[in-house]
C-alpha cells in the first residue's frame, strides 16, 4: 500500500528528468536535412579575385571541408586560429564561403589573421548560404568524393571537435 504514495514522487522525478534533458540541449543544434545529400551546386566569384569563379563541382574526387564564415562574425574570429591550425596540417582542402560580407573587410581579416583557405567563394547576397541551410555563421561541412555532405557543424570549430570527429571522418572518407 505504501507504494501508492510513491507514484506522484516517481512521476515528479520522471518529469524533472525530461525537463533536465530538455534544458541541457542546445536549441540551436538543429539537425540538418542536408546530411547524406548532394551538396547544393553553385557558381560564385572568388573572394581574392572576382574574375575567377568557384563551383563545388570542381572538387569532385576530393574530400574537402566547406567553412562558412564572415569578417563581421565574432564567433568566426574565435574559430579562425583553429582553422589556421587545421590548414597547416593539410589533411583536406578547406574552402571558405564568405557569407554576406564586404570584400575589403574579409581580405583584411585574412591577411591579418592568416588564411587557412585554399580559396574563398564570395556569397554577397547570402543565396548560396540559404541553399546550404546556413542560419548562423560559422558553419562547417565535410563533403566527400562524390560531393555528398557527410557532416555539418554549427558554431565555432574547436581542436577537440577536429580531433574527435572531423579528422577521423576525413581519413575514413579518404580511404573509401
Amino acid at each position, binding site marked *: 500500500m505504501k507504494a501508492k504514495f510513491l507514484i506522484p514522487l516517481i512521476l515528479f522525478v520522471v518529469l524533472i528528468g525530461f525537463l533536465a534533458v530538455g534544458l541541457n540541449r542546445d*536549441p540551436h543544434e538543429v539537425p540538418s*536535412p542536408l546530411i547524406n545529400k548532394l551538396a547544393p551546386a553553385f557558381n560564385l566569384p572568388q573572394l581574392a579575385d572576382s574574375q575567377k569563379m568557384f563551383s563545388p563541382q570542381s572538387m569532385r574526387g576530393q574530400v574537402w571541408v566547406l567553412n562558412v564564415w564572415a569578417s563581421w562574425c565574432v564567433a568566426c574570429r574565435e574559430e579562425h586560429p583553429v582553422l589556421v591550425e587545421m590548414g597547416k596540417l593539410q589533411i583536406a582542402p578547406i574552402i571558405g564561403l564568405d557569407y554576406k560580407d564586404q570584400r575589403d573587410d574579409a581580405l583584411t581579416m585574412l591577411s591579418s589573421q592568416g588564411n587557412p583557405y585554399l580559396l574563398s567563394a564570395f556569397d554577397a*547576397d*547570402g543565396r548560396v548560404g540559404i*541553399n*546550404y*541551410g546556413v*542560419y548562423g555563421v560559422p558553419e562547417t561541412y565535410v563533403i566527400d568524393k562524390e560531393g555528398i555532405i557527410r557532416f555539418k557543424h554549427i558554431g565555432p570549430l574547436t581542436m577537440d571537435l577536429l580531433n574527435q570527429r572531423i579528422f577521423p571522418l576525413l581519413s575514413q572518407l579518404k580511404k573509401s
Partner: protein
Amino acid sequence: MKHFLLMLSAFCIFANGSGVAQAKDAAPLADDPVTEQRLITISEEMRCLVCQNESLAGSRSDLANDLRREIRTLIKEGKSDEQIRNFMVERYGDFVLYRPPVKPITWLLWLGPFLILLLGIAGLLIYLKRRNQAVSTEALSDDQNRRIDELLKESTHD
C-alpha cells in the same frame, strides 16, 4: 537633481543609439498586395531560425529578411504554397515548420496526448469501479428507516 539630469542624459544617449541602430532601410515590399498577403500567410507558419521564438513573418533578423525575399521570389515564379514549404524544409528541416508533419518520427508527438488521455480514462474507470465495490451495501435497520422518514417530513414542513 544632478542624478536625475545624469540619468536623463544617459537615457537620451541610449535612446539615440538604439534609434540609429534601427534606422535601416525598409525591406522591399512586393509590388502587389496579393503576393505580400501570401508571404505573410506562409511565413507566419514558419519559425525564424535565428530567434527561434519568433515566426519568420515577425522576425527582423537579417536571415529572416533574406528568407522572406526568397519566398517572395518563389511566389512570383508561381510556386505553390506546398512547393515553398518544401523549399524551406529541404534546407532547414521540419524544424522550420510550426506544425510538424505527421510521419513515423512524429507519431509520438501527435498521438502521445491522446494516449495519455486514454490512460487517464482507463485509470479513472478502474478507480471508480474499485470505489463502488468498496462502498458498503449493508441494509438499513427499521429504526434507521423511520428516522429518515421523520427527517424528510421535517424538511418538507419547513
